[in-house]
């Protein structure tokens, strides 16, 4: 009598096959993030690329006349818009960094457990406010406040948008900055306190140097968020193509330009493709910022 095929651990072939399939699906989902990043680049590039042949890139980046709908000769110069974006982002960062890192230090070093929980929850709620609500706050509340406090004609300007962006990027700085401070070994703190340092000296001389990479990454991610923010700046900057001479000038940003004009262009027109080109530019900027932040963080782990 021929020996019967041995049964494999009481499990049917079908179950094994099923498990193989499930593992396959899990692996596919695992690489989904890579697929989507490439897909985003591919599809945005696919819509924007045809204009590259027609457009003088030097003119595109360095001239400041943005007349996309002018009948005879539409001109696409994003110089002023790039400077607008930079000015808003820079001011927002300048406001957000001290507050964000200060709050991170306070949460991590100076307060008790209960207060820490309460502060972290509040910061989480702050992060949850939708950007369109921030924009609305800029349009109504901040607009009036800035007009009254600084006695200027227009309250929708660089300062307004920068304050909103600062409030929006502070939560991310706090949570990542706090992680960075938490990663500093407690023995550092104990050594410093045993030598008779005050907490202030501890923070300034020990923690900040030890956690500087993590804090830098926190700032970079905050900046990344500020560059990519759309609705709040669309509503609060005043939306005029303009190289700002003071923080009370209205400007326009790259993101807001796309949001405001894409709805009015015909698919496939030059104007439409230029807006996608701006999208590629934005994608590249945030990609570089995020990559740098990631490398900086990886740098700490290696140490």
């Amino acid at each position, binding site marked *: 009598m021929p020996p019967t095929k041995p049964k494999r651990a009481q499990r049917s072939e079908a179950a094994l096959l099923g498990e193989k399939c499930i593992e396959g699906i899990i692996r596919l989902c695992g690489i989904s993030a890579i697929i989507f990043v490439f897909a985003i680049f591919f599809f945005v590039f696919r819509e924007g690329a045809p204009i590259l042949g027609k457009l003088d890139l030097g003119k595109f980046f360095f001239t400041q006349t943005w007349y996309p709908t002018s009948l005879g000769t539409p001109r696409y110069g994003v110089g002023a818009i790039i400077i607008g974006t930079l000015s808003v982002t820079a001011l927002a960062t300048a406001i957000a960094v001290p507050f964000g890192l200060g*709050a991170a230090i306070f949460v991590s070093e100076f307060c008790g457990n209960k207060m820490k929980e309460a502060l972290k929850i509040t910061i989480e709620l702050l992060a*949850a*406010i939708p950007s369109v609500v921030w924009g609305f706050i800029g349009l109504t509340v901040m607009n009036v406040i800035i007009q009254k406090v600084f006695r200027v004609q227009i309250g929708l300007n660089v300062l307004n948008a920068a304050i909103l962006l600062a409030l929006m990027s502070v939560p991310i700085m706090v949570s990542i900055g706090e992680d960075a401070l938490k990663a500093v070994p407690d023995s550092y703190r104990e050594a410093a306190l045993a030598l008779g340092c005050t907490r202030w000296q501890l923070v300034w001389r020990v923690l900040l140097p030890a956690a500087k990479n993590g804090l830098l990454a926190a700032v970079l*991610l905050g900046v990344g968020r500020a560059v990519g*923010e759309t609705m709040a700046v669309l509503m609060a900057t005043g939306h005029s193509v303009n190289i700002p001479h003071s923080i009370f000038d209205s400007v326009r940003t790259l993101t807001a330009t796309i*949001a405001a004009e*894409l709805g009015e262009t015909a698919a496939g027109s030059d104007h439409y493709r230029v807006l996608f080109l701006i*999208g590629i530019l934005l994608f590249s900027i945030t990609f570089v910022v995020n990559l740098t932040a990631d490398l900086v963080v990886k740098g700490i782990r290696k140490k």
Partner: protein
Amino acid sequence: MTAATPQPKAMFVKTNFVRKKQRSELIAKCIFGAMSLAMIVPLILIIGYLVIKAWPLLSWDFLTTNPIGGMRKGGIWSALLGTIYLVVISLCVAAPIGVLAAVYLNEYATENWFTRIINLAVVNLAGVPSIVHALFGLGAFVLFARLDRSILAASLTLAIMTLPVIIASAKEALASVPVSFREACWNVGATRWQTIRGIVLPNSISGILTGVILQVSRTAGETAPIMFTGAVFYRNIPEGNLFAYSIKDQCMALSMHLYTVATQVTNAPEALPYAIAVVLLGAVLLVNATAIVFRVILRSRKKW
């Protein structure tokens, strides 16, 4: 007894140096505390201001009637329902993919260059500006996949946008299940998938759910990605019918409605945009608070 013996003086005497030290410590604490407060106080003031301005319009009818009269009167029913549709559909797409991706990263992937690239992709996907997601949605779903501007296209765009955050939070929840649980399961002869299904997922499901709930609030507030992929300024739907939209329709959304009323509609009653903002903010914060309460309860109940 009355002639009290002089008490021995405290063993440590505060010198000027110590006093100075304590003072500087107090000052540092106050400065950092003030910086934290500087973020929280405006938050409370602003929310309070919005609620006060919106108060006259807030009522149940406001939620359940359609906007009428060129969006100057009536309620926000069609926008509210549209937002619910977008959130639910995008979560149905993003949550399974995100959780499975987290399972892969936490249970299958080994520490190598490929895993590093995946993690890098997740971080970068999270950093892509929302307006670029909108361009992608328009290029890929609306034009390339020929879904036209529809709830489906907008939801898919939102799903890709929320994916990285779901992956990150699910990964954290999975990582909090102790390795010994898995080892015990493998030792009785379970396969990887059986371990995941029987031990890892049940023990981390609450953490995963918290992350997903938090995503609901983010999705509900997004405006830019849906502007060109499925949301419209105005659409009338039957009131009181929860299934009034089909996924091929275009829809209104709360966030978009707020933008429209605040910037494009002239002569709208003053309280109207405030009321929309308060409803949107209220929904978002309510969902967030639920997730936070959920998490606090979970932490106190943790068995290991």
